[in-house]
């Protein structure tokens, strides 16, 4: 039985490597399970349909739409200008601006794409202008974009709550601690690294007179208010009992349209139409993939893979530390080959019984899965956020790979380890709110 599952996973990896469109990768793996694993397909489409119409799932398309709108309605530009006020004068400051802006955008957006999609087109050229290598600039914006999944609201946490029956709000709060630490580590690495580039300049700030600067800053603050009010509306709305996290995604989209049209005036009718079309295609691409991912994961459940996994792992060792390391490596590998949502849907139900046996609380595990799978977006071969970053930053894989790996290994992986072995980091906030 497990041989079939192992073969199926290999097949899935092969299909992924062959650049088969993702819905068909999972569809192919599903076909294999149906034909060789004895999983009946008769009611599978019925089951899949009923999973797909879950009101929770609609968070994902709504966040895709909101993210695409936010990317082109001027919100990012004004947030960047705002953050620039505080660190613009420091050598390497623009890098910190990138990280911090991605974190703020993360507080409105539920996905890992929005940060790079919204800030990349403005920030990367500006950084290149100031003497940063193109690959470095792109890598920094791309890895910071992952914060969108760690700073709530976060679509993977909505899914985690859904598939594991855990409080979504608690899951949201669990990754805030790790997220903030990553903002700090990325900023530090960037500040150190910036000094190693020979030609880095400070841009316009260095040549602006102090008095003009004050005036300019005042203007920037005022212009940033609508953008800054968005996270307040979204998070305030969720925690203030006005709307659910899923509804927040719809509200985020609906609110950013008038801001784009009438406040920042960067949204025009034709642009809006193309944004909507673009979003619809992205939504279709993601959701058709999710359907077959769900069905594939159901065939694993039918074959009782979670129970078998527990048995195998506990036969290897019962040492909690070793098992947690194994789980982390496993999640890292999962993140390499599938995207965050897929990984969450596929793996959370498989591993939750195991970690429960280990005495890990579901909320703590939300953070462990969150930090691991969020990283998946930038770890090749399947690195959707990284590829998007490359497209936006107009740079080659070979240019972006090294700086990305440095940020991940020195700035991200340590936080993953910390999250895994220091429960308070993720449980502190949920406990404060009485949720864990």
């Amino acid at each position, binding site marked *: 039985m497990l041989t079939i599952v192992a073969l199926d996973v290999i097949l899935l990896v092969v299909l992924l490597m*062959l650049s088969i469109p993702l*819905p068909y990768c999972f569809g192919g793996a599903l076909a294999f399970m149906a034909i060789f694993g004895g999983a009946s397909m008769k009611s599978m489409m019925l089951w899949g349909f009923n999973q797909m119409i879950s009101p929770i799932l609609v968070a994902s398309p709504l966040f895709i739409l909101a993210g695409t709108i936010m990317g082109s309605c001027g919100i990012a530009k004004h947030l960047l200008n705002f953050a620039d006020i505080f660190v613009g004068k420091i050598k390497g400051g623009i890098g910190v601006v990138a990280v911090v802006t991605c974190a703020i955008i993360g507080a409105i957006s539920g996905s890992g794409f929005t940060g790079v999609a919204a800030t990349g087109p403005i920030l990367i050229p500006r950084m290149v202008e100031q003497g940063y290598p193109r690959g470095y600039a792109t890598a920094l914006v791309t890895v910071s974009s992952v914060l969108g999944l760690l700073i709530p609201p976060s679509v993977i946490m909505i899914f985690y709550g859904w598939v594991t029956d855990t409080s979504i709000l608690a899951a949201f709060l669990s990754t805030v601690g790790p997220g903030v630490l990553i903002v700090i580590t990325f900023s530090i690495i960037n500040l150190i690294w910036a000094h190693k580039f020979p030609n880095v300049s400070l841009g316009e700030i260095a040549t602006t007179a102090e008095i003009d600067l004050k005036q300019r800053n005042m203007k920037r603050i005022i212009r940033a208010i609508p953008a800054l009010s968005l996270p307040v509306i979204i998070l305030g709305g969720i925690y203030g009992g006005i709307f659910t996290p899923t509804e927040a995604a719809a509200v985020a989209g609906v609110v950013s349209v008038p801001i784009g049209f009438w406040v920042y005036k960067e949204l025009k009718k034709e642009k809006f139409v193309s944004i909507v079309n673009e979003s619809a295609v992205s939504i*279709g691409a993601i959701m058709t993939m999710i359907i077959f991912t769900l069905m594939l994961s159901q065939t694993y459940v039918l074959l009782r893979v979670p129970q078998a996994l527990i048995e195998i792992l506990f036969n290897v060792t019962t040492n909690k530390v070793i098992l947690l390391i194994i789980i982390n490596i496993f999640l890292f590998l999962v993140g390499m080959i599938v995207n965050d949502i897929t990984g969450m849907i596929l793996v959370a139900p498989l591993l939750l019984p195991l970690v429960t046996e280990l005495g890990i609380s579901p909320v703590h595990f939300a953070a462990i899965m969150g930090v691991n799978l969020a990283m998946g977006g930038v770890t090749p071969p399947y690195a959707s956020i990284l590829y998007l970053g490359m497209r936006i930053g107009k740079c080659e894989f070979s240019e972006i790979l090294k700086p990305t790996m440095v940020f991940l290994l020195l700035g991200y992986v340590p936080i993953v380890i910390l999250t895994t072995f220091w429960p308070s980091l993720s449980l502190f906030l949920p406990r404060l709110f009485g949720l864990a």
Partner: protein
Amino acid sequence: MGKFFEILGKIQEKILMFLTILIPLLVTFQVILRYVLHAPLMGIEELMLFPIIWLYMLGGASASRARNHIECGILTLYIKKEKSMAIFKVVKTAISLMISIWLTYWAYWFFTYSLKMWKVSDLLYIPMFFGESSIFIGLTLMTMYSAIELYDMIKNLLNISKSIKEGGVKC
């Protein structure tokens, strides 16, 4: 034939546009009804399921049409020769098409099941068939677009082979 697909594509695009705008507005509308007016409408969630599932499935079909599905894409970075690339694309598209046909077959099973059972929704008594049929129709469109893509890829491969034989293109 080309004209037909063009019109079909346009219709798809228009419907998708409508659905993509409708859904967030409906969700927001319900939030306002509930929070501001204290009078949430029963049945909005149920009503929503129809545009939602059609958005997913027609969106998937549009992604197929635009050849814009998410792919892993690692191997394509290493294929340099034009002809190898053309062969690779034929193989890849053929596999996708096979899988798509298999999935469509099972979606067809569900389509007939849905038609036979003719279930209605709990509150508004809307026939579920109007939602459930989206899976089959979406997958049928996806299969169709995959088939067109395969046809194009084969044509492309033949063209390249021909021009290589004639010595016109270096590879």
